[in-house]
């Protein structure tokens, strides 16, 4: 009964909330408006935006040293999560079946597990960093902890359901993922989309000023 709800209507509900929520957030950012820059630019803003979009993936020397932990853990987490989210066999099958209708090559099981482990190491370290570092301790609010906690729980239940043989475990994983989808647009998890905006906005300004980021 509950299983059917989670697997059916609630999944579509959370997907709709996610899509509409994300769209709404992005529109609300654009609606805040931006005045055109009247200063004569040194070079093009769009090339700057594009450059900044990618160059920010690489940490800068000094901060790469001082903030090494954040960078290393951040990379581990994001790369691992990306790989397992989009290239784990069960996820590929699920997405193909429910959303796209087509599938793509998935990682072999061992690579999937290794990416999950990498993501776990990264997430745990980032979480601990948030709890222990004075700066992140001061900055973090409930949203940050709920977001981290939810992602962790989704990943953990996913790992507990690895046998893919016990329906309740899969449903628990799915249910938490649905909660995450619903929570996503209202939280700083939105950075998965908005980072494109923030990097582009800054990059455009830097490009116009002729500063290579």
């Amino acid at each position: 009964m509950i299983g059917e709800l989670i697997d059916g209507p609630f999944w579509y509900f959370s997907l709709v909330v996610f899509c509409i929520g994300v769209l709404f957030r992005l529109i609300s950012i654009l609606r805040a408006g931006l005045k055109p820059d009247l200063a004569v630019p040194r070079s093009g803003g769009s090339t700057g935006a594009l450059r900044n979009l990618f160059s920010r993936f690489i940490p800068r020397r000094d901060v790469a040293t001082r903030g090494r932990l954040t960078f290393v853990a951040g990379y581990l987490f994001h790369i691992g999560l990306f790989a397992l989210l989009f290239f784990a066999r069960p996820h590929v099958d699920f997405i193909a079946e429910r959303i796209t209708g087509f599938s793509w090559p998935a990682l072999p099981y061992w690579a999937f597990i290794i990416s999950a482990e990498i993501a776990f190491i990264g997430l745990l370290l980032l979480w601990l960093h948030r709890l222990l570092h004075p700066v992140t301790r001061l900055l973090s609010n409930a949203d940050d902890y709920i977001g981290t906690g939810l992602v962790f729980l989704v990943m953990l239940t996913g790992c507990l359901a690895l046998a893919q043989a016990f329906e309740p475990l899969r449903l628990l994983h799915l249910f938490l993922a649905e909660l995450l989808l619903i929570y996503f647009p209202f939280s700083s998890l939105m950075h998965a989309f908005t980072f494109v905006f923030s990097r582009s906005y800054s990059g455009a300004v830097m490009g116009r000023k002729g500063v290579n980021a």
Partner: protein
Amino acid sequence: MRRALFSSAGVETAGFSAVLMLTLVLAFLLLMAPHAMAETAGNAPAIQVPNPSTDLWREVRQRDGVTSGRSQIAGVESGTLINPYGETWRNFRMKQLIPYSGYLLAGMLLLLILFFLVRGKIRVKAGISNKKLFRYTLYERMIHWFIASVFLFLALTGLILLFGRSLLLPWIGSEVFSLLASASKEGHNLFGPVFAVALLLVFIRFVRRNIYQKGDLTWLLKGGGIIGKGHVPSNFFNMGEKSMFWLLVLVGAVIVGSGLILVFPVFGQARITMELSHVSHALTTLLMILVIMGHIYIGSVGMEGALDGMTTGYCDLNWAREHHAEWATLCEQEGKVITDVEVSRLRGDGDTQQHAATSAQETG
């Protein structure tokens, strides 16, 4: 045929071989006796009737060590007809490991409770001061809690697999328990290698401060100050902590090694390898859990001021003087003592209002 707790399959084989040898010798003597008598009688030689199956069954039971047959079926040890160690492993797990480790864990818990009731919380004698020493860096605290959380998860899932059938299954039923057990198994398998990473990080970070020094023996002889009166001066880590570290590292290495053998059955490991890995994994983790129980006790309710260093990074000056006198003296000589106020500034504690007010006063 009950063996001691630490019996291994190897001991058993030796036992088997000895018994077998004895039987063979006896059989030989029995066979030879009439033969000799017949020869002395000078009659026609009697027909020896060898049992055609003797050799076969000897091979089958693998009593002369493992001699493999051949099978058209591919697979691990598909040519081995009988694996005699399975029974040994079964007896170890069911009759020794499960009951005795249960008693040990419960006993340790009881011991800690008793100890707490008798000794109580070990207070900082001079009282908590308003001065602090910086003890663990952010990275050190991070990897500590990293390995701690992974260890707790692994211990919990491992114990569920070990004791679940006897303790949980009767309560929650087969279906729910098998969910839990499957989750535990998958979680245990996935987090195992994570623990290996964590252990490596901890080892690299803390090894230098854990090399045994002069004075560590005195600490040991005085029982770490718990038995006698007064504390024994020690450096950054005392003898007990150092020993725990090495235990953690060495035992942890065995745990990781045996765990990896168990979790990667892809290299065609023979069953005996898996059985031995399981035995060593079980015994070493049991030891580790017992030690960690003590570690958690002393770090939490057992001793005042012991947890601070690992949570905030700063420990109380008086606590350091009493428990790590050499280190505290060194820090004091180097002028590394800082005030509570400074610590709370560095940690961003307290509300901004207060801070803004104080710093406005300072600057204005």
